[in-house]
C-alpha cells in the first residue's frame, strides 16, 4: 500500500470553535471517502495533532458532502482572546491534518483525481 500524504485524497477547512477548533476533511472521491470513514478515526487525528491540541477529538460525518468533521477541544492555547499563539484561530489546522502520512490502497488512489 503506498504511503501518501492525506492531501493526495482529501482537502480541508478549519477554524476556531470556542477553546478549540474544527477541521472538516473533505474526500476527493467516493472511494477516498469510504476509505477515510473507516481509517481516519478521531484517535488518529488526535495523535497526529498532539503538538497542537491538548484536548480530546470528536468526529462527525456528513455523507452528502463526503465530509468528516473533527472537533479538537483544546487546540488554541486558551479560548477567546486569551491565546498567545500566532494561529489563535486554528486557521492552519486543516493543512496540518492534511500533512498526515497515511497508507492508502492503490485502488483508492487510482479512483481519486490528484490535486
Amino acid at each position, binding site marked *: 500500500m503506498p504511503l501518501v500524504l492525506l492531501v493526495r485524497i482529501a482537502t480541508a477547512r478549519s*477554524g476556531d470553535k470556542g477553546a478549540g477548533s*474544527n477541521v472538516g476533511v473533505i474526500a476527493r472521491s467516493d472511494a477516498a471517502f469510504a476509505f477515510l470513514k473507516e481509517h481516519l478515526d478521531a484517535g488518529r487525528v488526535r495523535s497526529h495533532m498532539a503538538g497542537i491540541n491538548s484536548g480530546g477529538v470528536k468526529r462527525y460525518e456528513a455523507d452528502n458532502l463526503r*465530509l468528516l468533521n473533527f472537533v479538537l477541544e483544546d487546540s488554541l492555547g486558551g479560548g477567546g482572546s486569551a491565546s498567545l499563539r500566532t494561529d489563535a484561530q486554528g486557521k492552519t489546522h486543516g493543512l496540518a491534518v492534511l500533512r498526515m502520512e497515511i497508507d492508502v490502497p492503490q485502488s483508492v488512489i487510482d479512483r481519486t483525481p490528484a490535486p
Partner: protein
Amino acid sequence: MPRRDKVLVGNGQGFWGDSILGPVRLVREGPLDYLTLDYLAEVTMSILQKLRSRNPEAGYATDFVEMIDRVLPDLVKRDIKVVANAGGVNPRACMQSVMKVIRKHGFQGIGVGIVEGDDILPRLDELIAEGEEFCNMDTGEPLARVRDRVTSANVYLSAFPIAEALDRGAQIVITGRSTDPGLVLGPLIHEFGWQRGDHDLLAAGTVAGHIVECGAQCTGGNLTDWRRVPDMARIGYPIVEARADGSFAITKHEGTGGIVDENAVAHQLAYEMGDPRAYLGPDVSADFTSFRMEADGRDRVRILGVRGRPPTDTYKVSISHEDGWKATGQLTISGPDALEKARLCADIVWKRLAMDGCEYAPEEKLVEFLGANVCHAGIVVREAGAPSEVVLRMGVKGSDREKVDRFGMELVPLVTSGPPGVTGFAGGRPKATEIIGFWPALVRKEKISTRVEVVRS
C-alpha cells in the same frame, strides 16, 4: 405569497476588516437584489460596548457608514436593499449616521430600519433575579463567577424582525447581534412569505446564509487547492440565488475571479461546524447532512432538499468579560545559526526577568520561532533545512497588568545585549492589552423582546 420567484442575495463582508471592494464590486459588477454585510465577532461586541461607554453616540461599525456613502447612488439606482449587523451595541446611532449620509446625497423617502433588543447588558441583573442562570455552555459554571467583570451581553436574535423591517419598507436594515446566516434568511422570509413553522425552508435559508457568511471564503478563498483558483486578486464575492421552494444556488458575478464548485462550497460548509445534523439557530435547527449538492454549470452549485427541525425554546447569548492581560512582541534573528541564536535570545529574556523578580508560570508564557515549524508543531513530514532567519515571537499573560508590562521591557534590549543579527524591533515595546473572555450561555425566549423601527429620509 412570494413577491418574486427568484432572489439574489450577495454577501460583501465576511467580518469587520474585510475588503471594502467586496460590497462595492457586488453592487456594480452584476445583478443583485440584496447586499448583506457581517461585521460582528464576539470580541467586537466587547470593544463596541467599551466605545459606547465613553461616547453614547458610538458603539457601531463605522466602516459600514463609509461604505454606504460610497455605494448609495448605486443602491438607489438599482433598487438594491442592504441588511447588515453593523449596529453593534448601538443600532440607533448607526441609523442616525446612515441618515446623515442619505441626506447629504439628497435622496428622499429612503427607509432605514433597525432591530433592537439583543443588548441585555443593562437587564442582566434583572434577568438573573428572574431565574436566568446564564451558565457557561462549555463548562457549566454559573455566571456569578465573572459577573462583576462582564463587559457585554448580546442575544443572537431571530431573522423574523429583519423580515419585518423589510415588510415595513426599509431599504437598509441595521441590526445588532443577529446571527450571521440570519442576514440572508431575513430577506428570504420577507420575499417568499416563509412562516415560523416552515422548518425545512428556514433551514434552507440558514444553510445558504452559512455558506456565504464569510464572504469570499466560499468562492475560492482559503481553498486547499489554491493553485486552481483563477484571478484571486479579483475574487468574486458570493451570491445566493434563492427560490421560494427552498432550493438555491451559490454563484458569483460573471467575469470575476475565484471559483464556485462543490469542493469550494463544501469547504465553507465545514467552517465552524460542530455536529452537522444539528446546526442550531434561533429560528430552526438545520440538518447539514440532509441535502444534495450538485454542480450546475460554471461557477454555480445547486443545493436542494435541506431539512430542518423546530428550534429550541432558548436563544444563545454571547457574553464577554475581562479576563486579565497579555502582551506579545517579536524580533527577527538573521543567520548564520538563526534558530540557535533565537533560542538563546528567548532564554536570556526569561532569565533577565527572573533576575528582577518577575517569573511566569508555564501556561502564562509562550515562545515561538516563526519560520521553524510553529503552525504545525509536532507534525514532521519533511524537515526543512536550517532556516536562514527566524522571527522570535514571545508572549506572556496573567491577571497582573504590571507584570505583563514588565515583560515588554526585556525584548528590545536584545538588539544590543544579545547575539548578533537581532533586528526588526519596529513598533517598540510590547504593551499589555486586555484579554476578553467569552461566556456562551442561553436565555429563555420569552424573556427577550425585539423592537423594529423604520424611519424615512
